[in-house]
């Protein structure tokens, strides 16, 4: 079984102006998704990320810049790592992501498994 990272892109709830009630609804949907995966015995693990401050360290001078999450175009809000046969199966899992209607996106990336050696070796 391969592993895929589902990366959740898009503004955080407060920046979208969601009310507490709406956030509670969203949470219910996330729990539903998680329960779905559990029922289908899909291993999944992940984290949500703070979106207030995004710090970047870049370049040979190690320049540090801080940006508010709301200023970033494709803000990473969190991720899951799921087990799936291939990209299609991972896409199927990503159907359950609750925030498409808010304009948010799931980016799917296969995790390289180094224990299997490099491809072609």
């Amino acid at each position: 079984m391969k592993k895929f990272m589902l990366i959740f892109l898009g503004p955080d709830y407060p920046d979208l102006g969601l009310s507490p009630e709406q956030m509670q609804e969203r949470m219910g949907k996330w729990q539903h998704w998680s329960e779905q995966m559990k029922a289908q015995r899909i291993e999944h693990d992940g984290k949500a990320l703070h979106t207030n401050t995004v710090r970047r360290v870049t370049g040979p001078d190690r320049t540090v810049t801080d940006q508010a999450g709301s200023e970033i175009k494709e803000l990473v809000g969190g991720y899951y790592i799921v087990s799936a046969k291939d990209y299609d199966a991972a896409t199927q899992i990503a159907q359950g992501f609750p925030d498409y209607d808010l304009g948010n996106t799931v980016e799917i990336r296969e995790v390289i498994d180094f224990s299997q050696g490099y491809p072609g070796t």
Partner: protein
Amino acid sequence: MSADQPGLLDHLFRRSYAKYLAILVKHFGPDKLELLEDALQDTFAHATHAWREQLPERPEAWLTTAAKRRTIDLLRRYSATTARHKRASTDQPLSATVEQLFLASEVADAELRMIFTVCHPSLKPQDQLAFALRCVSGFSGSEIASALLLKPDTVKKRLTRARATIRKRNIRFEVPTGSTLAKRMPRVLEVLYLIFNEGFHSASRERVVREELCGEAMRMCQQLLQATAIQDATGALTALMALMCFHAARLAAKVDDDGQLIDLKHQDRSKWHLPLVFRGNALMHEAVKRGSFSVYHYEAAIAAEHLRAESFAATDWTQIAGWYERLRTIAPSPMTDLSLAIVYIQNGNPVKSRQLLEGVELNALASRQYLYHGCWAEWHKAFGSSHDARQCLEKSLHAVVNEQERCYIQGKLDALG
């Protein structure tokens, strides 16, 4: 256990938000309202992230702890800005200050202050509804827009204006006392009454919108009733709560499954919610014992009279006309005259109903002129010709905006044949 199971976490976020916001505003001052709203939003967003996989064992306690931590952050940030905070931070550790702020008695007091603040007479009446839904009920801009059938931009403007007024006028976050309290109460009751009516007469097809608005108005009313700081000397508050109970009892019977309006005559009376009727009756007994009768006393009396009738035909129109006559003497309004005219039509009194209708100033009805034409249609149907009735219904149809009511009038026109 999942959060979308109804009842389990019944509006937990919304309720908690309103509580915490009141607590924070009481401590930091209403001029920091927007900043405090943002801080709390973050706390709830944090909870939605943390609870994605599983609910904590005690969700409410979890939220309170998170809110307290957030408050400590805010205290650190603002401790030097005012003397009051400085004192709080030097006399005792921050955690002790926070524990005090979150005491149950303090919460009730803070929520009461919030109600009086959003109903402050310096604010424009149209802003107050949106502002109350925002600060007392924790609605978002888009929720307010759909509840009050306004454009999101309009809501935003109203909220901004209300916050600016609070800052500019330096409005204090308090419950007035003595004669000031007596002076301020009518406006508070009016705002609650308007919120309730927005729900009761909502053009929204979604039943949940109606129920939420009515429910919020009733919840605020209940908070006022329970507050020891408020003595309902005139009984107006108690009567308003009775009125809301009576109307709310009919909420489910008022709209059919397709969202179409059902008038009083055709409502399934077995769908009326009896516990609310009983509650309303008990409140009314209480309300009539106090001082003078308010508009809410009379409106509740009228609603009670309708509920008392086993069928539409059994309605005691004479009694209802009597209540309306008294309502007119203390609060004359063209809407009351229209209602009373309908009562006299039902009671078979062509002269009095005609007099009332002829006395109504059409312009004073603004967007509700279609009701005037509708009343005339009823009059012609009862005492005149169906030709004239049809003409009036067509005028009414021409003037009506609300889609639901347009269907209702069209139905009446079709029934005339």
